[in-house]
């Protein structure tokens, strides 16, 4: 049968297949149902956080002590909390803080991690040992103890401080990923080939090594963002996070520490809990989808 294929047809087919590695990755990602579902869910959550003022006209920080722990009504869709603040408004605005903290901490961590990992993986030797031993040290410190210590000694906990605390304790994960990728890629002949052309170190790093390491970097940064959102919620839950009345999902959950609210008012703590769950799950699905898209072999292996 193969003999019947018209050669020009075959040529046209080949032309259509001419896709860059990035296009192929996008194609594989879009074919992953779980990842696309995660993408849609996360987009909805982000949109609802951005457009919070359009969805509710209640100020999430305004306390009204005459209206505490109200059941859901047409005025307050999810009732009010123990200080009389509107739960629905806090849910929407809280998403902003949680997502912003997760995203900026991830970017910050990514910058430190890529910079240190690049230096360690490319130059090797003493500087590599120095960076990696320091990374090991940072990873060996228990996150909560370190974070609580820092937060306990500063007067005011701001979002920037929070981002900083999360980032400085998580960057070694990315350093390891970047360094590992560089060590593998450095052995590939195309790096030697660039050296034979007289390429500078900068060109080798930015044109040859980083573009080929970008897959694992993005995947791990995404998964790290999910962890960071959980960290923020955990800290806020035990009251060591962003202080009230700023709404965050973690702050809303801390209401559930009260046994009466836990029992009688599930509408106060279930939505933020679900929001965290959905966000983290979506991000993880996206991360897994990205991993399969960048490295198709990994999904075949696990099957």
């Amino acid at each position, binding site marked *: 049968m193969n003999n019947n294929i018209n050669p020009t047809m075959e040529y046209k087919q*080949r*032309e259509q*297949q*001419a*896709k*860059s*590695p990035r296009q192929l990755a996008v194609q594989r990602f879009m074919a992953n149902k779980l990842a696309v579902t995660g993408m849609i869910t996360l987009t909805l959550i982000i949109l609802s956080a951005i457009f919070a003022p359009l969805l509710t006209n209640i100020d999430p920080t305004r306390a009204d002590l005459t209206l505490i722990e109200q059941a859901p009504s047409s005025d307050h869709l999810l009732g009010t909390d123990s200080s009389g603040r509107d739960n629905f408004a806090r849910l929407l605005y809280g998403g902003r803080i949680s997502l912003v903290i997760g995203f900026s901490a991830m970017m910050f961590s990514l910058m430190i991690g890529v910079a240190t990992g690049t230096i360690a993986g490319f130059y090797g030797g003493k500087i590599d040992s120095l960076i990696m031993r320091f990374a090991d040290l940072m990873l060996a410190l228990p996150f909560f103890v370190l974070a609580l210590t820092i937060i306990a000694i500063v007067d005011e906990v701001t979002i920037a401080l929070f981002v900083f605390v999360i980032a400085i304790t998580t960057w070694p994960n990315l350093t390891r990923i970047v360094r590992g990728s560089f060590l593998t890629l450095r052995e*590939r*002949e*195309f790096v*030697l*080939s*660039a*050296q*034979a*052309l*007289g*390429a500078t170190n900068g*060109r080798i790093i930015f*044109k*040859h090594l980083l*573009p*080929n390491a970008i897959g694992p970097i993005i995947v791990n940064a995404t998964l790290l963002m999910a962890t960071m959102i959980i960290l923020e919620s955990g800290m806020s839950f035990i009251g060591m996070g962003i202080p009230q009345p700023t709404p965050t999902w973690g702050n809303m959950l801390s209401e559930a520490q009260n046994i009466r609210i836990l029992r009688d008012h599930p509408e106060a703590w279930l939505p933020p809990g679900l929001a965290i769950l959905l966000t983290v799950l979506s991000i993880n699905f996206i991360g897994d989808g990205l991993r399969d898209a960048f490295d198709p072999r990994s999904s075949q292996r696990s099957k």
Partner: protein
Amino acid sequence: MVIETERVAVEQKTLTPLIRVNELEKYFPIKKGILKKTVGHVKAVDGISFDIYEGETLGIVGESGSGKSTLGRVMLKLASPTAGEIYYQSTNLTHLNRNDMRSYRQDLQMIFQDPFSSLNPKMNVYELLEESLLIQTRLPKEERRKKVASMIGKVGLRQSDLQKYPHEFSGGQRQRISIARALILEPKFVVCDESVSALDVSIQGQVLNLMKDLQDELRLTYMFISHDLSVVHHMSDRVAVMYLGQIMEIAKKEAIYDNPLHPYTKALLSSIPTGVEEGVREEVRLKGDIPSPANPPKGCPLSTRCPFAFDRCHKETPELLKKNDDQQVACHLYENE
């Protein structure tokens, strides 16, 4: 005027070598323990000297582990030599640092072994070829585009291939891209490191012929490294036989293949399946495997495996001596003749 004299030089195949290697050594230290103490050396290249003349192809043959690839890399300063000198025309490249070396890289290029690893998968063919020009020249964009377009034609690929990525090509096509990438700079000297070993035998011929055609067209000088004797025979004018980092025999191709002197050369030729080469040759079989280059035998490197080895072979290392016109051999068997 300069061009004129150059052309005359090529025609005469003058005796000024394009590349000269003198007592080149590359030792890799073996480090052990927590203090990284050096406990020994792998002598990948162990005192090699030879000249390569303009326009010729020097073949380098030897088993895996004989130091052929290391030799190629050290000659292009992709690894720094432990001792010895490398000359390009009259320039001593040995002690040039990376920046000073950069300007010579336009003339000294390399074609790599594995076409699946030597092309950056994230760059398309146009970017891959343009990179050579971006690094080495200051040509404007339009000039670069013209050069890339003409080079891709020279290696037998289509203009429409320029927008494609390496994963869309077969091994042979990828190797053509590698060749284009090295030759777009119009180098003088090209090291071909096992450049066809990773390809199917049916494709090898095409790529080899392409390399030969381009050699004539661009007046290239090749150093052709391979473990495949028939490929080296097809490509080379002269052949050097390497074993454990040393040259055993170096001679014109005809002499190596028709009148090999060194027992190792004879053994290599005996290993070619019959039918490829005609005529009955003295058959030499070696005992055992190639020794570790970290712990080479005393005396002649081949002494542990050579069927003709006698007392002196185990004590003294033979020197590479001129046997007859253009044939040098490092073997005690021929020293007293």
